[in-house]
């Protein structure tokens, strides 16, 4: 096995048209290996490393064990989000194991000099909400976190992806990561949604996953483009990029435009003044996909006839239109025996019968939150549905803002009152019932309309049944006690 090494950035391909992903990739190559005549792994520089309490303790332990330091604590930021309670913050954390994990993060950050937005910090929140919110996320950067939904940050033109704990340790120690270059995948979204309040970014991404499957993007980085993407707000783009991982892709990316630059301007960690304007000039010129750039895969989705989406099964490709009925396994599987068995299993777990209209399905719980749908716009849109109405007496509904800042902004707009008056619980920020690591969980057999990203068996609590929907669909379901076509309300 002969490896030969290049000590400098690859400069041979500067004349070839490139995608934004390829440009960011090339800009971050520290070192490059060949394997025979093929490309080997690249050592990529990581500009921003985000940490949370669940996937980092073992990485810090290994650093200590090997006497290693954190190479760039100044490029590393931590928060507590996965297992924190969303009830009153002034009370101690009752769950002792959660408390231990939270204390471990605090101790590790102190020992290694890492900025931490802890439990009581006004900047605390879901790591993928606070990164963009504080200007830690910048166009053209590489961002990693021990969390698969790191793909969210791609909405601002960053190359951002989830990593495991061993890679967290590697980035802590070296600020770099060995990677084989993923393939490129363009998803072009054309047309215009007929009702822009009722049909949301969530419905777009769910319909994409329905079409390409949960492994459709495996081995690729997805670039979302087209007129529909340009029309979306930055927060809506985050919802789309967030669920790239549910389509199997490690990252999703959108070329940053004026909306993106305006979004990040003036945030806590964003460069200021003339330096910022210089960076914007650089981004405008460099962070684009060249006209003739080639993608290894390319699909187009037209949203003219898109309607609100609801998941019925136990993976995020098991999705139907709100106007549809629960599918028969044979129809879902389309001749694939593995998929047919998966559908049978899903129907049994979800306690659903084929041919049932999805709007006949009664729910017990509603969760509005998660790194997919817990930002101010999400809460604002959901509040339009809720205002002046009451949550069904059969439903327990909660809103969990993505961050303390989102919570405060929402309260300034009076959204907390709208939700509380309707009978929703208004909680503190965190991942909460998206994965149920705190006490916000479904009881066995409970059925939930959730704005989160995964409907896996037991995801929101052992035996719980999750239906993925947009914030407005979740809000409407809370009111009626079953799924409804929210287009009739907005």
């Amino acid at each position, binding site marked *: 096995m002969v490896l030969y090494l290049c000590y400098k950035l690859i400069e041979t391909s500067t004349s070839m048209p490139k995608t934004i992903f390829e440009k960011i990739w090339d800009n971050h190559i520290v070192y490059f290996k060949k394997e025979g005549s093929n490309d080997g792994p690249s050592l990529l520089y990581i500009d921003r490393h985000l940490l949370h309490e*669940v996937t980092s303790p073992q990485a810090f332990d290994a650093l200590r064990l090997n006497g290693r330091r954190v190479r760039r604590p100044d490029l590393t930021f931590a928060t507590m989000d996965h297992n924190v309670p969303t009830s009153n913050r002034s009370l101690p954390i009752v769950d002792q194991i959660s408390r231990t994990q939270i204390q471990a993060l605090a101790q590790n950050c102190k020992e290694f000099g890492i900025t931490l937005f802890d439990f009581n910090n006004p900047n605390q929140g879901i790591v993928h909400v606070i990164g963009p919110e504080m200007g830690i996320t910048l166009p053209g950067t590489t961002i990693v976190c021990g969390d698969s939904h790191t793909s969210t940050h791609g909405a601002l033109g960053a190359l951002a992806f989830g990593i495991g704990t061993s890679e967290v340790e590697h980035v802590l120690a070296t600020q770099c990561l060995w990677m084989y270059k993923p393939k490129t995948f363009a998803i072009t979204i054309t047309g215009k949604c007929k009702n822009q309040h009722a049909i949301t970014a969530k419905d777009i991404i769910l319909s994409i996953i329905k079409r390409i499957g949960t492994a459709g993007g495996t081995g690729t980085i997805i670039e979302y483009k087209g007129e529909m993407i340009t029309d979306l707000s930055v927060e809506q783009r985050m919802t789309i990029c967030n669920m790239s991982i549910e389509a199997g892709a490690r990252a999703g990316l959108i070329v940053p435009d004026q909306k993106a630059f305006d979004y990040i301007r003036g945030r806590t960690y964003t460069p200021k003044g003339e330096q910022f304007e210089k960076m914007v000039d650089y981004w405008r010129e460099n962070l684009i996909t060249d006209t003739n750039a080639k993608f290894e895969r390319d699909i187009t989705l037209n949203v003219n006839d898109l309607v609100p989406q609801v998941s019925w099964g136990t993976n995020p490709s098991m999705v139907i239109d709100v106007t549809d009925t629960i599918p028969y396994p044979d129809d879902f599987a389309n001749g694939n025996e593995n998929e047919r068995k998966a559908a049978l299993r899903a129907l049994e777990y979800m306690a659903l019968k084929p041919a049932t209209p999805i709007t006949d399905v009664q729910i017990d719980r509603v969760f509005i939150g998660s790194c997919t749908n817990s930002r101010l716009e999400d809460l604002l849109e959901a509040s339009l549905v809720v205002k002046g109405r009451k949550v069904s007496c059969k439903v327990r509904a909660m809103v969990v803002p993505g961050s303390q800042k989102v919570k405060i902004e929402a309260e300034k707009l009076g959204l907390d009152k709208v939700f509380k008056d309707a009978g929703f619980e208004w909680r503190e920020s965190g991942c909460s019932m998206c994965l149920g690591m705190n006490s916000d969980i479904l009881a066995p057999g409970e059925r939930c309309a959730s704005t989160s990203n995964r409907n896996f068996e037991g995801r929101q609590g052992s035996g719980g049944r999750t239906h993925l929907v947009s914030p407005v669909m979740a809000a409407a379901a809370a009111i009626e006690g079953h799924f409804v076509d929210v287009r009739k309300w907005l």
Partner: protein
Amino acid sequence: MEPFKVIKSKVTPLDISNVDTDQIIPKQFLKLIQRTGFGKYLFYDWRFDRDGNPKHKFVLNDPKYTGRQILLARDNFGSGSSREHAVWAIQDYGFKAIVAQSFADIFYINCFKVGLLPVSLSSEEIEYLFRNTDLDVEIDLFNQQVTIGTIITNFKIYEYRKKTLLQGLDEIDVTLQLESIIVEYEKKNKAIVPYTDKP
């Protein structure tokens, strides 16, 4: 990491597609802050009922499969959450390799970091294995070869990953030797866009 050796075992068949990491290691076990001892929680909700009693229908509870070192799975194995606890659990349970039709990206990479070998085979080969779970299987990483009874097939793997497993390399040590090149990169990059400066 222990250098990877040739594996000889029969397979434990898990006949389910799209197995996600929430099933491999449910969230309640992610609160632990050590790296070891996750094997007893592997596939917890599929393996045990709510009272903690084994579910007899689940493959890991069938005594026939006790001690087998190769987990046989279908397509898109390890999808979902990036939790490395999933590979820790599989390895701690006693598996040394996973043979499947395909793997999810993050899970696949996590396997190499702990010395667990993920092997992708064609759907026909996977079908054959599911039909013949009592055949002896040998996995030879150096020669990239799987022997199933009398059938021999090859699998693909990137050279660097293969080398990491075969030599049990500490990847951080490898990278730390490139420190001067990393410093050079930081200086050069700073001149273009100050991403490498303290924000």
